[in-house]
């Protein structure tokens, strides 16, 4: 079957309002034949009715009535396309006012971040900010697409200057893999097909890079982490003694026979078998959803974590983390919030706001004692339940959490644990 052996790349796009992001996405979708005739016809008809000179591909991606009315993208949208070897999920994040919170949302699950800059403008505050956020979120691959090369006569020196400036800036960030590609989204140069207008560029086209960037090695396959999600106990004669711990592997490789510890109780046992639906399997690794069985009848419930005896996180109620604050009422010391970390929930008290990070300059502002909407800062929390956490830099699943306002039920913060 077509998709059975394909792999998956999730990427988040970022860029200022007029950098041509919608056009680029439209181009990727169009050239990978992921736009259907009826969708294109609808967009053409709307463009014509609005009196535009050209088909506005942004209409394809702006899905909400109010977005089309205002001509802006309000919220993250997810889009899909595939080439013969790979399926792509794009988290299309808006460049507008609410950038940080939406970018964090899109980047949280991304393997790759795509930042667009306008070749005429060069690096802007916005492009630096996007790169900082992608790096904070530990998105392992970054692509800087220098767009609108057609408007600077495909001049190599423009590209070289932006390249130099950005690589210089990136040394301050954690960007393990960077690619800088000169493109014209409007004309299709170096998007899917190699540009004849830029013979001086010898790197990959954007599509080629997206198709070939190696993402499998980005997961932690060393430190076994299995947050227990659900205990499966069938009340049936056939499976009378069945007691399995269901969950999604968050790190490492689990195998029958492994000596394991159940946290936070600290009880030890051995994995007796691992089920994937009705099959017994010999190993489980991220992001598989499986059911683990233990040799001993230890008490295990949702919120617990199974790890290796000699390699387990230390349960802790004192958390030091970077927080992206997402709501208008500011985060303040002494505030109490609900916290969700893996399958564990509890409450958290804000003990201290150490600093607010200026995402433009990377300056740490230690004077401000609160975080406003879309601001990022370093915070210490005290939680009611111990978290079974790793540093975010080591594991994006066991190192992340969300904060919830208990009165409104809304997710108000995204946290990344420092190590």
């Amino acid at each position: 079957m077509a998709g059975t052996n394909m792999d998956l790349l999730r990427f988040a796009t970022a860029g200022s309002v007029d950098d041509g992001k919608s056009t680029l996405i439209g181009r990727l979708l169009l050239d990978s034949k992921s736009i259907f005739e009826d969708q294109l016809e609808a967009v053409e008809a709307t463009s014509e009715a609005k009196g535009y000179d050209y088909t506005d591909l942004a209409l394809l991606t702006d899905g909400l009535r109010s977005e089309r009315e205002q001509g802006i993208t309000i919220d993250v949208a997810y889009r899909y396309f595939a080439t013969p070897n790979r399926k792509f999920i794009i988290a299309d994040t808006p460049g507008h006012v609410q950038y940080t919170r939406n970018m964090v949302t899109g980047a949280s699950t991304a393997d790759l971040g795509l930042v667009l800059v306008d070749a005429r403008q060069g690096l802007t505050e916005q492009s630096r900010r996007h790169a900082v956020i992608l790096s904070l979120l530990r998105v392992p691959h970054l692509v800087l697409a220098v767009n609108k090369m057609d408007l600077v006569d495909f001049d190599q020196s423009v590209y070289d200057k932006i390249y130099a400036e950005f690589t210089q800036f990136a040394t301050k960030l954690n960007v393990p893999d960077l690619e800088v590609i000169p493109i014209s989204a409007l004309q299709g140069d170096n998007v899917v097909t190699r540009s004849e207008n830029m013979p001086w560029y010898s790197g990959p086209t954007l599509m080629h890079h997206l198709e070939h960037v190696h993402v499998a090695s980005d997961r932690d396959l060393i430190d076994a982490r299995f947050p227990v999600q659900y205990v499966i106990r069938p009340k049936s004669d056939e499976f009378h003694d069945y007691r399995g711990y269901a969950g999604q592997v968050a790190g490492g490789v689990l195998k029958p026979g492994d000596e394991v510890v159940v946290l936070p109780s600290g009880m030890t046992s051995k994995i007796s078998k691992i089920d994937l639906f009705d099959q017994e399997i010999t190993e489980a690794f991220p992001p598989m959803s499986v059911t683990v069985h233990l040799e001993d009848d230890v008490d295990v419930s949702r919120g617990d974590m199974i790890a290796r005896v000699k390699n387990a996180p230390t349960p802790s109620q004192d958390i030091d983390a970077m927080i992206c604050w997402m709501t208008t009422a500011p985060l303040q010391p002494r505030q109490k919030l609900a916290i969700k970390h893996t399958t564990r929930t509890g409450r958290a008290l804000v003990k201290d706001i150490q600093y607010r990070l200026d995402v433009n300059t990377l300056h740490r502002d230690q004077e401000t004692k609160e975080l406003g909407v879309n601001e990022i800062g370093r915070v210490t929390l005290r939680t009611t339940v111990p978290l079974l956490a790793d540093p975010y830099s080591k594991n994006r699943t066991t190192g992340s959490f969300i904060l919830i306002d208990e009165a409104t039920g809304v997710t108000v913060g995204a946290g990344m644990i420092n190590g």
Partner: protein
Amino acid sequence: MSQTHSDYRLSQLDQLEAESIHIFREVAAEFEKPVLMFSGGKDSIVMLRLAEKAFYPAKIPFSILQVDTGLDFPEVMETRDRWVARLGVNLVVASIDDAIKNGIIPDAAKISRNRLQIPTLLNAIEENGFTAAFGGGRRDEEKARAKERVYSHRDEFGQWDPKNQRPELWSLYNGRLHEGEHMRIFPISNWTELDVWDYIGREGIEIPSIYYSHQRRVFVRDGMLMSETPLNPLREGEVVEERTVRFRTCGDITLTGCVESTASTIAEIIDEVAVARKTERGATRGDDRFSEAAMEDRKKEGYF
């Protein structure tokens, strides 16, 4: 799945499956009373299969809810009954006819039954006290759906507020609710039409026979091929003829068109879907043709 993985890679279909199963388990663990909304179409059936896998060998720990429009294809109802019997799940049917009879919704003969599904569904959710309702919506279906979260919050009127959605980070879903509110859950958000077909093929999943090529008495309406049925009287100038067709979606028989096709196996359907130049909804769903925002408007009111 093979027994050893030298490179520890999961195919995209396995990744999607793992993500969906994670969502099913998360909801079952955190919500008081979930329910799976079931239309009988291919997406709902894939959802049933995923739910079966998520809790195996235990039974699926929630009921399934079907809104009976009175206009469903008989082949779809037969498939539904076989799945319900095989899985031993509890089926709740919310019937539009009953809702009209009981005065819950007006008997407005001129309103499409598609729209009457909304109050019928919301009433069933409220009456049964369901706090989470799984739906088979996919983000690739429609541009309003591309904006939808996996956990989609609904207020006490069942309304979706697209401008005020909760941020959704990592795989940390927030299921907090106030009294009277509920959550719509979309475990196959990230699947495309092709993924669904690949999965049906890989898993050997039974789907209604109308998805496969068959002979059917049809007529042309609004550019779509519609089934001849007493539920959908012919209008002037419409002529019935027999053609070789199949369906790409299963909905209300009076609004769901079919396409000419000889694809009679999953492999042939996949070949056809892979080169299709029209979306499944654009090609065969009359209900999405009312306006550019038809889906968004219905979703705001509580449609799934």
